[in-house]
């Protein structure tokens, strides 16, 4: 259920687990890793946005895509909005 005080560790776990499900190499998944380096494409990011919406009630729009380059960018964005 969406909460208003989600800690960063929880967000990070959901994002990391999702990326692993999408096929990213677990040892490569780090906050500073770019999605491109993890071979995570726009469809994966759309799916990640859906998971984030369900878990944290945070909507990531296609207009946010430009500022999302790394795993940490997503974690920060969700933390700022949740």
């Amino acid at each position: 259920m969406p909460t208003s005080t989600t800690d960063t560790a929880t967000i990070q776990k959901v994002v990391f687990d999702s990326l692993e499900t999408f096929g990213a190499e677990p040892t490569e998944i780090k906050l500073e890793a770019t999605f491109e380096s993890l071979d995570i494409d726009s469809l994966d990011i759309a799916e990640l946005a859906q998971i984030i919406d369900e878990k944290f009630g945070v909507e990531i729009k296609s207009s946010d895509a430009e500022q999302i380059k790394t795993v940490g960018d997503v974690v920060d964005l969700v933390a700022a909005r949740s």
Partner: protein
Amino acid sequence: MTVRPQDACALVTGGARGIGAAAARALAEDGWAVAILHRNSAAEADATVDAINEAGGNAIAVTADITDPAGCESAFTEAEERLGPVLCLVNNAGMRADGLAMSMGDEDWDAVIDTNLSAGFRLTRRALRAMVRSRFGRIVNIASVVGPRANAGQANYAASKAGLIGLTRTVAAEVARKNVTVNAVAPGFIETDMTADVPDAIKESVPARRAGTPDEVAACVRFLASDAAGYVTGTTLYVDGGLAA
């Protein structure tokens, strides 16, 4: 071969009669639980549901105006809640409002595009959520031989169906690697209420020299929705007695 999850269902728009009802029956025979969407054909929808359930299947009827985005959403959610995730979507609901382009009103243009194309897009967008997450999905859009080929008096209908084929191909490319397939079936002259006013003489132009049946279209839908068709995506399967050949 990817096998479909057993808790899933198929949703067929315009499923009360004609091609939609035949597709619903065929999918049920293949083991799909089926939600039949209809706008104002309750008696026919119930009859189709009863026929499926009496044959050992599992079907429900859901009332919705698919040209209303909120109606699409609520109908989709109802199907999910009652039958499980929608992992097969058949965008079949369609209408005609014929007239020459130079005298066609905006209302007739908009109504046909809304029903035949925009509703299909909205339901596709909604359905992809669960399909992508499930790594399994089957979308079958019922297009037409009209669209890829001309038919004077049907600019709106042809545009909607050609648009549906374009939608099919692009969405197929977008989601292929998630094991979601998107295909179109393009019927020619099929004996339904919608073609009841088509003169018999036109059917003479069909190489097969006869009209097709809804069951012949449904068989193609059933195949495209099956596990066996997992590598078929982005294509249009013509069911037209050779009309487009």
